[in-house]
Protein backbone atom coordinates (compact mmCIF):
# COMPACT_ATOMS: atom_id res chain seq x y z
CA UNK A 1 0.00 0.00 0.00
CA UNK A 2 2.74 2.46 0.96
CA UNK A 3 4.72 1.42 -2.12
CA UNK A 4 1.67 2.12 -4.19
CA UNK A 5 1.39 5.55 -2.60
CA UNK A 6 5.08 6.23 -3.23
CA UNK A 7 4.67 5.29 -6.86
CA UNK A 8 1.76 7.67 -7.13
CA UNK A 9 3.74 10.51 -5.56
CA UNK A 10 6.67 9.80 -7.88
CA UNK A 11 4.29 9.89 -10.83
CA UNK A 12 2.90 13.23 -9.66
CA UNK A 13 6.40 14.65 -9.44
CA UNK A 14 7.35 13.48 -12.93
CA UNK A 15 6.93 15.81 -15.90
CA UNK A 16 4.05 13.67 -17.07
CA UNK A 17 2.24 13.86 -13.74
CA UNK A 18 2.79 17.59 -13.29
CA UNK A 19 1.48 18.37 -16.77
CA UNK A 20 -1.55 16.12 -16.57
CA UNK A 21 -2.51 17.33 -13.10
CA UNK A 22 -1.78 20.93 -14.12
CA UNK A 23 -3.99 20.62 -17.17
CA UNK A 24 -6.81 19.11 -15.13
CA UNK A 25 -6.59 21.93 -12.59
CA UNK A 26 -6.45 24.55 -15.34
CA UNK A 27 -9.47 23.00 -17.03
CA UNK A 28 -11.40 22.87 -13.75
CA UNK A 29 -10.46 26.41 -12.85
CA UNK A 30 -11.45 27.80 -16.24
CA UNK A 31 -14.67 25.83 -16.22
CA UNK A 32 -15.70 27.10 -12.80
CA UNK A 33 -14.52 30.63 -13.50
CA UNK A 34 -15.91 31.15 -16.99
CA UNK A 35 -18.44 28.44 -17.53
CA UNK A 36 -18.63 24.95 -18.95
CA UNK A 37 -18.29 26.12 -22.56
CA UNK A 38 -14.52 26.28 -22.03
CA UNK A 39 -14.45 22.57 -21.36
CA UNK A 40 -16.77 21.78 -24.26
CA UNK A 41 -14.67 23.87 -26.66
CA UNK A 42 -11.51 22.19 -25.43
CA UNK A 43 -12.90 18.72 -25.99
CA UNK A 44 -14.13 19.53 -29.48
CA UNK A 45 -10.93 21.29 -30.55
CA UNK A 46 -8.85 18.53 -28.96
CA UNK A 47 -10.65 15.81 -30.87
CA UNK A 48 -9.87 17.52 -34.15
CA UNK A 49 -6.25 18.12 -33.22
CA UNK A 50 -5.84 14.51 -32.16
CA UNK A 51 -6.59 13.34 -35.70
CA UNK A 52 -3.99 15.55 -37.32
CA UNK A 53 -1.30 14.95 -34.74
CA UNK A 54 -1.58 11.16 -34.61
CA UNK A 55 -0.84 11.13 -38.34
CA UNK A 56 2.16 13.37 -37.84
CA UNK A 57 3.39 11.28 -34.91
CA UNK A 58 3.16 8.17 -37.06
CA UNK A 59 5.23 9.71 -39.86
CA UNK A 60 7.87 10.88 -37.44
CA UNK A 61 7.99 7.76 -35.30
CA UNK A 62 7.95 5.12 -38.00
CA UNK A 63 9.59 6.77 -40.99
CA UNK A 64 11.76 9.37 -39.32
CA UNK A 65 10.29 11.99 -41.62
CA UNK A 66 9.80 15.45 -40.16
CA UNK A 67 6.65 16.00 -42.17
CA UNK A 68 5.98 19.60 -43.12
CA UNK A 69 3.47 18.83 -45.84
CA UNK A 70 0.97 17.33 -43.42
CA UNK A 71 -1.20 20.44 -43.58
CA UNK A 72 -1.40 20.08 -47.35
CA UNK A 73 -2.90 16.62 -46.98
CA UNK A 74 -5.41 18.25 -44.63
CA UNK A 75 -6.06 20.72 -47.47
CA UNK A 76 -6.43 17.90 -50.01
CA UNK A 77 -8.96 16.23 -47.71
CA UNK A 78 -11.03 19.38 -47.32
CA UNK A 79 -10.86 20.10 -51.04
CA UNK A 80 -12.09 16.66 -52.01
CA UNK A 81 -14.83 16.80 -49.38
CA UNK A 82 -15.90 20.15 -50.85
CA UNK A 83 -16.12 18.84 -54.39
CA UNK A 84 -18.03 15.75 -53.27
CA UNK A 85 -20.35 17.53 -50.89
CA UNK A 86 -21.35 20.49 -53.10
CA UNK A 87 -23.27 18.40 -55.67
CA UNK A 88 -24.72 16.33 -52.84
CA UNK A 89 -26.01 19.42 -51.04
CA UNK A 90 -27.43 20.81 -54.31
CA UNK A 91 -29.24 17.54 -54.74
CA UNK A 92 -30.56 17.41 -51.19
CA UNK A 93 -31.80 21.00 -51.49
CA UNK A 94 -34.20 19.74 -54.16
CA UNK A 95 -34.92 16.40 -52.54
CA UNK A 96 -35.13 17.03 -48.78
CA UNK A 97 -36.33 13.48 -48.10
CA UNK A 98 -33.33 11.80 -49.67
CA UNK A 99 -31.17 9.52 -47.54
CA UNK A 100 -28.26 11.73 -48.62
CA UNK A 101 -29.37 14.37 -46.10
CA UNK A 102 -28.00 12.13 -43.38
CA UNK A 103 -25.40 10.13 -45.28
CA UNK A 104 -24.16 12.68 -47.82
CA UNK A 105 -21.73 14.33 -45.40
CA UNK A 106 -20.48 10.89 -44.40
CA UNK A 107 -19.80 10.12 -48.06
CA UNK A 108 -17.88 13.40 -48.39
CA UNK A 109 -15.83 12.76 -45.26
CA UNK A 110 -15.09 9.19 -46.27
CA UNK A 111 -13.98 10.40 -49.70
CA UNK A 112 -11.60 12.86 -48.09
CA UNK A 113 -10.04 9.96 -46.18
CA UNK A 114 -9.63 7.82 -49.28
CA UNK A 115 -8.25 10.71 -51.34
CA UNK A 116 -5.82 11.52 -48.51
CA UNK A 117 -4.60 7.92 -48.48
CA UNK A 118 -4.16 7.87 -52.26
CA UNK A 119 -2.33 11.20 -52.18
CA UNK A 120 -0.03 9.74 -49.55
CA UNK A 121 0.70 6.70 -51.70
CA UNK A 122 1.48 8.95 -54.68
CA UNK A 123 3.80 11.04 -52.49
CA UNK A 124 5.59 7.87 -51.36
CA UNK A 125 6.14 6.64 -54.92
CA UNK A 126 7.13 10.01 -56.39
CA UNK A 127 9.06 11.55 -53.51
CA UNK A 128 10.09 9.36 -50.61
CA UNK A 129 10.84 6.04 -52.31
CA UNK A 130 13.21 7.59 -54.88
CA UNK A 131 14.99 9.38 -52.02
CA UNK A 132 15.34 6.14 -50.03
CA UNK A 133 16.71 4.36 -53.09
CA UNK A 134 19.19 7.13 -53.72
CA UNK A 135 20.80 7.51 -50.31
CA UNK A 136 20.18 6.67 -46.70
CA UNK A 137 22.64 9.28 -45.47
CA UNK A 138 21.26 12.48 -44.03
CA UNK A 139 17.77 11.02 -44.26
CA UNK A 140 16.20 13.28 -41.65
CA UNK A 141 17.42 16.51 -43.26
CA UNK A 142 16.80 15.44 -46.86
CA UNK A 143 13.33 14.09 -46.24
CA UNK A 144 12.45 17.21 -44.26
CA UNK A 145 13.51 19.44 -47.17
CA UNK A 146 11.51 17.29 -49.55
CA UNK A 147 8.37 17.63 -47.46
CA UNK A 148 8.77 21.41 -47.43
CA UNK A 149 9.10 21.31 -51.21
CA UNK A 150 6.08 19.05 -51.46
CA UNK A 151 4.12 21.49 -49.34
CA UNK A 152 4.98 24.45 -51.60
CA UNK A 153 4.15 22.39 -54.66
CA UNK A 154 0.76 21.30 -53.36
CA UNK A 155 -0.19 24.80 -52.23
CA UNK A 156 0.59 26.21 -55.66
CA UNK A 157 -1.08 23.34 -57.49
CA UNK A 158 -4.24 24.09 -55.54
CA UNK A 159 -4.00 27.76 -56.46
CA UNK A 160 -3.30 26.97 -60.10
CA UNK A 161 -6.06 24.44 -60.61
CA UNK A 162 -8.78 25.40 -58.17
CA UNK A 163 -8.05 29.09 -57.62
CA UNK A 164 -7.21 31.03 -54.48
CA UNK A 165 -10.75 31.64 -53.26
CA UNK A 166 -12.38 30.11 -50.22
CA UNK A 167 -14.22 26.91 -51.05
CA UNK A 168 -16.42 26.30 -48.08
CA UNK A 169 -19.81 24.95 -47.15
CA UNK A 170 -22.37 26.35 -44.77
CA UNK A 171 -22.96 23.14 -42.88
CA UNK A 172 -22.88 19.38 -43.18
CA UNK A 173 -25.93 18.47 -41.12
CA UNK A 174 -28.78 20.86 -40.56
CA UNK A 175 -31.10 20.85 -37.59
CA UNK A 176 -31.09 22.07 -34.03
CA UNK A 177 -27.77 22.36 -32.23
CA UNK A 178 -27.18 20.01 -29.29
CA UNK A 179 -26.94 21.48 -25.87
CA UNK A 180 -24.58 20.24 -23.18
CA UNK A 181 -24.47 21.92 -19.79
CA UNK A 182 -26.16 25.07 -21.12
CA UNK A 183 -23.76 25.29 -24.04
CA UNK A 184 -25.15 25.05 -27.53
CA UNK A 185 -22.92 23.24 -29.97
CA UNK A 186 -23.75 22.81 -33.61
CA UNK A 187 -24.63 19.35 -34.78
CA UNK A 188 -21.65 19.40 -37.16
CA UNK A 189 -19.18 19.98 -34.36
CA UNK A 190 -20.55 17.21 -32.21
CA UNK A 191 -20.66 14.72 -35.03
CA UNK A 192 -17.21 15.60 -36.27
CA UNK A 193 -15.88 15.21 -32.73
CA UNK A 194 -17.52 11.78 -32.40
CA UNK A 195 -16.12 10.84 -35.77
CA UNK A 196 -12.59 11.89 -34.87
CA UNK A 197 -12.80 10.10 -31.50
CA UNK A 198 -13.98 6.98 -33.28
CA UNK A 199 -11.21 7.15 -35.90
CA UNK A 200 -8.49 7.75 -33.30
CA UNK A 201 -9.84 4.79 -31.31
CA UNK A 202 -9.87 2.57 -34.41
CA UNK A 203 -6.37 3.68 -35.24
CA UNK A 204 -5.13 2.90 -31.72
CA UNK A 205 -6.77 -0.52 -31.80
CA UNK A 206 -5.22 -1.17 -35.20
CA UNK A 207 -1.75 -0.28 -33.94
CA UNK A 208 -2.12 -2.33 -30.76
CA UNK A 209 -3.91 -5.48 -31.78
CA UNK A 210 -3.37 -6.21 -35.45
CA UNK A 211 -0.42 -7.94 -37.05
CA UNK A 212 0.22 -5.00 -39.37
CA UNK A 213 -0.07 -2.51 -36.52
CA UNK A 214 2.50 -4.45 -34.53
CA UNK A 215 4.75 -4.55 -37.58
CA UNK A 216 4.48 -0.76 -37.91
CA UNK A 217 5.47 -0.35 -34.27
CA UNK A 218 8.32 -2.81 -34.73
CA UNK A 219 9.67 -0.83 -37.70
CA UNK A 220 9.48 2.37 -35.67
CA UNK A 221 11.49 0.81 -32.84
CA UNK A 222 14.13 -0.99 -34.86
CA UNK A 223 14.02 -1.11 -38.64
CA UNK A 224 16.81 -3.69 -38.93
CA UNK A 225 15.20 -5.88 -36.29
CA UNK A 226 11.94 -5.69 -38.20
CA UNK A 227 13.64 -6.89 -41.38
CA UNK A 228 15.29 -9.72 -39.49
CA UNK A 229 11.98 -11.07 -38.21
CA UNK A 230 10.58 -11.07 -41.72
CA UNK A 231 8.75 -7.76 -42.10
CA UNK A 232 8.77 -6.20 -45.55
CA UNK A 233 9.77 -2.65 -44.74
CA UNK A 234 8.71 -1.20 -48.10
CA UNK A 235 5.12 -2.37 -47.57
CA UNK A 236 5.05 -1.05 -44.03
CA UNK A 237 6.41 2.33 -45.14
CA UNK A 238 3.77 2.57 -47.85
CA UNK A 239 1.01 1.66 -45.41
CA UNK A 240 2.25 4.12 -42.81
CA UNK A 241 2.40 7.03 -45.22
CA UNK A 242 -1.04 6.34 -46.62
CA UNK A 243 -2.47 5.88 -43.13
CA UNK A 244 -0.91 9.09 -41.90
CA UNK A 245 -2.13 11.07 -44.91
CA UNK A 246 -5.58 9.49 -44.64
CA UNK A 247 -5.78 10.75 -41.05
CA UNK A 248 -4.83 14.27 -42.18
CA UNK A 249 -7.29 14.05 -45.07
CA UNK A 250 -10.22 12.92 -42.93
CA UNK A 251 -9.46 15.71 -40.47
CA UNK A 252 -9.62 18.22 -43.31
CA UNK A 253 -12.79 16.68 -44.67
CA UNK A 254 -14.65 16.57 -41.38
CA UNK A 255 -13.71 20.16 -40.52
CA UNK A 256 -14.75 21.62 -43.88
CA UNK A 257 -17.72 23.37 -42.26
CA UNK A 258 -15.30 25.32 -40.01
CA UNK A 259 -12.29 25.77 -42.26
CA UNK A 260 -13.12 26.42 -45.91
CA UNK A 261 -10.59 25.03 -48.34
CA UNK A 262 -8.01 27.46 -49.72
CA UNK A 263 -4.37 26.99 -50.76
CA UNK A 264 -2.56 27.83 -47.52
CA UNK A 265 -5.18 26.50 -45.12
CA UNK A 266 -2.81 23.71 -44.07
CA UNK A 267 -0.52 25.97 -42.04
CA UNK A 268 -2.62 26.20 -38.90
CA UNK A 269 -3.30 22.47 -38.50
CA UNK A 270 0.36 21.80 -39.32
CA UNK A 271 1.63 24.13 -36.60
CA UNK A 272 -0.90 22.87 -34.11
CA UNK A 273 0.01 19.27 -34.85
CA UNK A 274 3.69 20.06 -34.41
CA UNK A 275 2.94 21.72 -31.07
CA UNK A 276 1.20 18.52 -30.00
CA UNK A 277 3.97 16.24 -31.25
CA UNK A 278 6.73 18.27 -29.57
CA UNK A 279 4.71 18.46 -26.37
CA UNK A 280 3.94 14.78 -26.20
CA UNK A 281 7.14 13.26 -27.52
CA UNK A 282 7.71 11.42 -30.75
CA UNK A 283 6.01 8.30 -31.93
CA UNK A 284 3.61 7.97 -29.04
CA UNK A 285 -0.02 7.67 -30.12
CA UNK A 286 -1.72 7.87 -26.74
CA UNK A 287 0.65 10.68 -25.81
CA UNK A 288 -0.34 12.53 -28.96
CA UNK A 289 -4.02 12.21 -28.08
CA UNK A 290 -3.41 13.53 -24.57
CA UNK A 291 -1.17 16.26 -25.97
CA UNK A 292 -3.87 17.27 -28.44
CA UNK A 293 -6.29 17.94 -25.61
CA UNK A 294 -3.64 19.89 -23.68
CA UNK A 295 -2.83 22.13 -26.62
CA UNK A 296 -6.54 22.60 -27.22
CA UNK A 297 -7.04 23.56 -23.58
CA UNK A 298 -4.16 25.98 -23.78
CA UNK A 299 -5.62 27.56 -26.92
CA UNK A 300 -9.10 27.86 -25.49
CA UNK A 301 -7.90 29.26 -22.17
CA UNK A 302 -5.63 31.75 -23.95
CA UNK A 303 -8.49 32.97 -26.09
CA UNK A 304 -10.63 33.23 -22.97
CA UNK A 305 -8.25 35.12 -20.68
CA UNK A 306 -5.59 36.74 -22.86
CA UNK A 307 -7.28 37.47 -26.15
CA UNK A 308 -8.16 35.86 -29.42
CA UNK A 309 -4.96 36.96 -31.18
CA UNK A 310 -2.73 35.22 -28.65
CA UNK A 311 -3.77 31.62 -29.21
CA UNK A 312 -0.64 30.94 -31.27
CA UNK A 313 1.75 32.84 -29.02
CA UNK A 314 1.15 31.09 -25.72
CA UNK A 315 1.49 27.52 -27.07
CA UNK A 316 4.62 28.62 -28.94
CA UNK A 317 6.19 29.88 -25.73
CA UNK A 318 5.35 26.59 -24.08
CA UNK A 319 6.96 24.68 -26.94
CA UNK A 320 10.14 26.72 -26.57
CA UNK A 321 10.25 25.95 -22.86
CA UNK A 322 9.70 22.25 -23.52
CA UNK A 323 12.42 22.16 -26.15
CA UNK A 324 14.82 23.78 -23.71
CA UNK A 325 14.00 21.79 -20.58
CA UNK A 326 12.53 18.48 -21.74
CA UNK A 327 13.39 17.92 -25.40
CA UNK A 328 12.13 14.35 -25.38
CA UNK A 329 8.60 15.62 -24.75
CA UNK A 330 6.35 15.08 -21.77
CA UNK A 331 5.31 11.56 -22.65
CA UNK A 332 8.65 10.82 -24.29
CA UNK A 333 9.73 7.29 -23.66
CA UNK A 334 12.28 6.41 -20.97
CA UNK A 335 13.57 3.64 -23.18
CA UNK A 336 15.74 4.89 -25.97
CA UNK A 337 15.17 3.37 -29.36
CA UNK A 338 17.60 3.13 -32.22
CA UNK A 339 16.08 6.11 -33.98
CA UNK A 340 16.68 8.35 -30.98
CA UNK A 341 20.46 8.14 -31.09
Amino acid at each position, binding site marked *: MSDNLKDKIAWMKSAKGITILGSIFLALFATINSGPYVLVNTIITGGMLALVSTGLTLMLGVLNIAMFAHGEFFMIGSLSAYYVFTPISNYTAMHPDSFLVTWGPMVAIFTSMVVGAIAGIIAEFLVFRPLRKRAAENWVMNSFLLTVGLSVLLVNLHQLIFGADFKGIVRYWGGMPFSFADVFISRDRVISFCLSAFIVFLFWAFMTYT*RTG*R*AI*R*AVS*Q*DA*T*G*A*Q*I*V*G*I*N*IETIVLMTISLSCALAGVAGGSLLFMYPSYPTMGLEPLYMAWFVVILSGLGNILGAVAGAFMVALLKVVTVEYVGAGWDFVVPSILIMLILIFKPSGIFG*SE*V*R*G*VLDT
Partner: protein
Amino acid sequence: MLLEIKELDAGYGYLQILRKVSLNVDKGEYVCIVGPNGAGKSTTMKTIAGLISPMAGSITFNGEEITGLPAYQITQKGIAFVSEEMNLFVNMSVQENLLMGAYIIRDKNVQKERLEFVFDLFPRLAERKTQLAGTMSGGERKMLAIGRGMMSDPTLMLVDEPSFGLAPQLTASVFESLEVLRKTGVTIMLVEQNVTTTLSITDRGYVLENGKVGLEGKSSDLLNDAYVKKVFLGV
Protein backbone atom coordinates in the same frame (compact mmCIF):
# COMPACT_ATOMS: atom_id res chain seq x y z
CA MET B 1 24.51 -29.08 -48.23
CA LEU B 2 22.33 -26.60 -46.37
CA LEU B 3 24.17 -23.37 -47.08
CA GLU B 4 26.69 -22.86 -49.81
CA ILE B 5 28.51 -19.62 -50.43
CA LYS B 6 30.64 -19.26 -53.54
CA GLU B 7 33.17 -16.51 -54.16
CA LEU B 8 31.17 -13.87 -52.33
CA ASP B 9 32.16 -10.21 -52.68
CA ALA B 10 30.38 -7.75 -50.43
CA GLY B 11 30.82 -4.46 -48.63
CA TYR B 12 29.31 -1.10 -47.77
CA GLY B 13 28.92 1.43 -50.56
CA TYR B 14 32.20 1.62 -52.43
CA LEU B 15 34.09 -0.13 -49.65
CA GLN B 16 34.58 -3.78 -50.45
CA ILE B 17 35.16 -5.96 -47.42
CA LEU B 18 34.67 -9.58 -48.49
CA ARG B 19 36.85 -10.89 -51.31
CA LYS B 20 35.86 -14.20 -52.82
CA VAL B 21 34.67 -15.81 -49.60
CA SER B 22 33.53 -19.41 -50.11
CA LEU B 23 32.13 -21.49 -47.32
CA ASN B 24 29.49 -24.12 -46.70
CA VAL B 25 27.43 -25.48 -43.85
CA ASP B 26 25.89 -28.95 -43.66
CA LYS B 27 22.59 -29.72 -42.02
CA GLY B 28 22.93 -30.11 -38.26
CA GLU B 29 26.44 -28.72 -38.13
CA TYR B 30 27.75 -26.19 -35.66
CA VAL B 31 30.09 -24.00 -37.67
CA CYS B 32 32.01 -20.96 -36.56
CA ILE B 33 33.77 -18.09 -38.27
CA VAL B 34 36.60 -16.64 -36.25
CA GLY B 35 38.99 -13.89 -37.05
CA PRO B 36 40.33 -10.53 -35.94
CA ASN B 37 38.36 -7.29 -35.82
CA GLY B 38 37.45 -5.98 -39.24
CA ALA B 39 38.06 -9.28 -41.01
CA GLY B 40 34.54 -9.27 -42.41
CA LYS B 41 32.84 -11.78 -40.09
CA SER B 42 29.79 -9.65 -39.40
CA THR B 43 29.66 -8.55 -43.04
CA THR B 44 29.46 -12.20 -44.07
CA MET B 45 26.57 -12.78 -41.69
CA LYS B 46 24.72 -9.63 -42.76
CA THR B 47 25.12 -10.60 -46.40
CA ILE B 48 23.68 -14.06 -45.81
CA ALA B 49 20.81 -12.51 -43.84
CA GLY B 50 20.08 -10.17 -46.74
CA LEU B 51 20.80 -6.91 -44.92
CA ILE B 52 23.62 -6.19 -47.38
CA SER B 53 23.29 -7.16 -51.01
CA PRO B 54 26.40 -8.86 -52.38
CA MET B 55 28.52 -7.35 -55.15
CA ALA B 56 29.34 -10.71 -56.71
CA GLY B 57 29.15 -14.40 -55.93
CA SER B 58 26.29 -16.65 -55.00
CA ILE B 59 24.55 -17.88 -51.87
CA THR B 60 22.49 -21.07 -52.06
CA PHE B 61 20.26 -22.26 -49.24
CA ASN B 62 18.63 -25.69 -49.34
CA GLY B 63 19.49 -25.87 -53.03
CA GLU B 64 17.76 -22.58 -53.72
CA GLU B 65 19.53 -19.46 -54.89
CA ILE B 66 18.99 -16.66 -52.35
CA THR B 67 21.63 -14.18 -53.51
CA GLY B 68 20.44 -10.59 -53.23
CA LEU B 69 17.01 -11.37 -51.81
CA PRO B 70 15.71 -8.81 -49.29
CA ALA B 71 16.08 -9.75 -45.63
CA TYR B 72 12.40 -10.48 -45.03
CA GLN B 73 12.33 -13.10 -47.79
CA ILE B 74 15.45 -14.77 -46.47
CA THR B 75 13.80 -15.04 -43.05
CA GLN B 76 10.82 -16.68 -44.73
CA LYS B 77 13.15 -19.25 -46.27
CA GLY B 78 14.19 -20.39 -42.79
CA ILE B 79 17.30 -18.43 -41.88
CA ALA B 80 17.20 -16.57 -38.58
CA PHE B 81 19.75 -13.89 -37.83
CA VAL B 82 20.75 -12.83 -34.32
CA SER B 83 22.71 -9.66 -34.89
CA GLU B 84 25.51 -8.28 -32.80
CA GLU B 85 23.41 -5.25 -31.82
CA MET B 86 20.46 -7.63 -31.20
CA ASN B 87 18.01 -5.16 -32.79
CA LEU B 88 15.33 -5.83 -30.20
CA PHE B 89 12.11 -3.83 -30.08
CA VAL B 90 12.98 -1.90 -26.94
CA ASN B 91 9.53 -0.50 -26.27
CA MET B 92 7.83 -3.87 -26.48
CA SER B 93 7.59 -6.48 -23.75
CA VAL B 94 9.59 -9.70 -23.85
CA GLN B 95 6.54 -11.63 -24.97
CA GLU B 96 5.71 -9.11 -27.70
CA ASN B 97 9.30 -9.28 -28.93
CA LEU B 98 9.11 -13.05 -29.13
CA LEU B 99 5.78 -12.93 -30.93
CA MET B 100 7.28 -10.49 -33.43
CA GLY B 101 9.92 -13.15 -33.99
CA ALA B 102 7.12 -15.41 -35.17
CA TYR B 103 5.87 -12.71 -37.57
CA ILE B 104 6.18 -15.00 -40.59
CA ILE B 105 4.07 -17.68 -38.88
CA ARG B 106 0.44 -16.77 -39.34
CA ASP B 107 -1.10 -19.65 -37.39
CA LYS B 108 -1.82 -18.46 -33.83
CA ASN B 109 -1.57 -22.00 -32.41
CA VAL B 110 1.85 -22.58 -33.93
CA GLN B 111 2.92 -19.20 -32.55
CA LYS B 112 1.85 -20.32 -29.09
CA GLU B 113 3.73 -23.59 -29.44
CA ARG B 114 6.87 -21.73 -30.44
CA LEU B 115 6.43 -19.39 -27.50
CA GLU B 116 6.12 -22.35 -25.12
CA PHE B 117 9.19 -23.91 -26.69
CA VAL B 118 11.29 -20.76 -26.22
CA PHE B 119 10.02 -20.28 -22.67
CA ASP B 120 11.02 -23.88 -21.91
CA LEU B 121 14.43 -23.24 -23.36
CA PHE B 122 14.93 -19.98 -21.49
CA PRO B 123 12.84 -20.03 -18.29
CA ARG B 124 14.37 -16.65 -17.47
CA LEU B 125 12.41 -15.09 -20.34
CA ALA B 126 9.17 -16.63 -19.09
CA GLU B 127 9.74 -14.98 -15.70
CA ARG B 128 10.14 -11.60 -17.36
CA LYS B 129 7.63 -11.82 -20.14
CA THR B 130 5.88 -8.55 -19.31
CA GLN B 131 9.08 -6.54 -18.88
CA LEU B 132 10.08 -4.07 -21.61
CA ALA B 133 13.01 -5.35 -23.63
CA GLY B 134 14.78 -2.01 -23.30
CA THR B 135 14.96 -2.34 -19.51
CA MET B 136 16.66 -5.73 -19.42
CA SER B 137 20.30 -6.50 -18.72
CA GLY B 138 22.78 -7.29 -21.49
CA GLY B 139 22.74 -11.04 -20.92
CA GLU B 140 18.97 -11.21 -20.84
CA ARG B 141 18.77 -9.21 -24.03
CA LYS B 142 21.09 -11.65 -25.77
CA MET B 143 18.92 -14.48 -24.56
CA LEU B 144 15.85 -12.65 -25.84
CA ALA B 145 17.49 -12.01 -29.21
CA ILE B 146 18.34 -15.72 -29.55
CA GLY B 147 14.85 -16.65 -28.40
CA ARG B 148 13.31 -14.27 -30.92
CA GLY B 149 15.40 -15.87 -33.64
CA MET B 150 14.11 -19.29 -32.57
CA MET B 151 10.49 -18.17 -32.79
CA SER B 152 10.38 -18.43 -36.58
CA ASP B 153 11.36 -22.12 -36.38
CA PRO B 154 14.51 -21.64 -38.49
CA THR B 155 16.57 -24.34 -40.16
CA LEU B 156 19.71 -22.24 -39.94
CA MET B 157 20.53 -19.78 -37.26
CA LEU B 158 23.18 -17.11 -37.76
CA VAL B 159 24.50 -15.85 -34.44
CA ASP B 160 26.76 -12.81 -34.55
CA GLU B 161 29.10 -12.23 -31.59
CA PRO B 162 26.86 -13.43 -28.76
CA SER B 163 29.60 -12.68 -26.22
CA PHE B 164 30.04 -9.07 -27.32
CA GLY B 165 29.85 -6.75 -24.34
CA LEU B 166 28.99 -9.47 -21.85
CA ALA B 167 30.63 -10.43 -18.57
CA PRO B 168 32.49 -13.80 -18.74
CA GLN B 169 29.93 -15.78 -16.71
CA LEU B 170 27.11 -14.45 -18.89
CA THR B 171 29.06 -15.40 -21.99
CA ALA B 172 29.23 -18.94 -20.68
CA SER B 173 25.46 -19.05 -20.19
CA VAL B 174 24.85 -17.72 -23.69
CA PHE B 175 27.08 -20.43 -25.14
CA GLU B 176 25.21 -22.99 -23.04
CA SER B 177 21.91 -21.84 -24.50
CA LEU B 178 23.33 -22.21 -28.01
CA GLU B 179 24.35 -25.76 -27.07
CA VAL B 180 20.76 -26.45 -26.00
CA LEU B 181 19.50 -25.07 -29.29
CA ARG B 182 21.83 -27.25 -31.20
CA LYS B 183 20.47 -30.34 -29.49
CA THR B 184 17.03 -29.45 -30.82
CA GLY B 185 18.42 -29.98 -34.31
CA VAL B 186 19.03 -26.42 -35.45
CA THR B 187 22.05 -25.74 -37.63
CA ILE B 188 24.06 -22.92 -36.14
CA MET B 189 26.59 -20.62 -37.70
CA LEU B 190 28.46 -18.65 -35.09
CA VAL B 191 30.70 -15.63 -35.42
CA GLU B 192 33.03 -14.92 -32.54
CA GLN B 193 36.16 -13.08 -31.53
CA ASN B 194 36.61 -15.33 -28.55
CA VAL B 195 38.67 -17.90 -30.48
CA THR B 196 39.54 -20.53 -27.85
CA THR B 197 36.05 -21.01 -26.47
CA THR B 198 34.44 -20.95 -29.87
CA LEU B 199 36.75 -23.51 -31.38
CA SER B 200 36.33 -25.80 -28.39
CA ILE B 201 32.53 -25.98 -28.71
CA THR B 202 31.98 -25.99 -32.49
CA ASP B 203 32.38 -28.79 -35.06
CA ARG B 204 34.05 -26.91 -37.83
CA GLY B 205 35.55 -23.50 -38.31
CA TYR B 206 36.62 -20.92 -40.83
CA VAL B 207 39.30 -18.36 -40.13
CA LEU B 208 38.60 -15.08 -41.86
CA GLU B 209 41.34 -12.53 -42.39
CA ASN B 210 41.16 -9.30 -44.39
CA GLY B 211 37.95 -10.43 -46.04
CA LYS B 212 39.33 -13.78 -47.19
CA VAL B 213 39.06 -17.29 -45.84
CA GLY B 214 42.53 -18.02 -44.48
CA LEU B 215 42.05 -21.45 -42.99
CA GLU B 216 39.27 -23.95 -42.63
CA GLY B 217 38.87 -27.29 -40.99
CA LYS B 218 37.71 -29.16 -37.92
CA SER B 219 37.58 -26.92 -34.90
CA SER B 220 39.80 -29.25 -32.88
CA ASP B 221 42.40 -29.18 -35.65
CA LEU B 222 42.23 -25.42 -35.92
CA LEU B 223 42.68 -25.11 -32.21
CA ASN B 224 45.97 -26.99 -32.49
CA ASP B 225 47.06 -25.30 -35.69
CA ALA B 226 50.40 -23.57 -35.31
CA TYR B 227 49.30 -20.48 -37.26
CA VAL B 228 46.08 -20.01 -35.30
CA LYS B 229 47.98 -20.48 -32.07
CA LYS B 230 50.51 -17.88 -33.05
CA VAL B 231 48.14 -15.25 -34.43
CA PHE B 232 45.05 -15.55 -32.26
CA LEU B 233 46.10 -17.23 -29.08
CA GLY B 234 49.54 -15.71 -28.75
CA VAL B 235 51.28 -18.94 -27.81
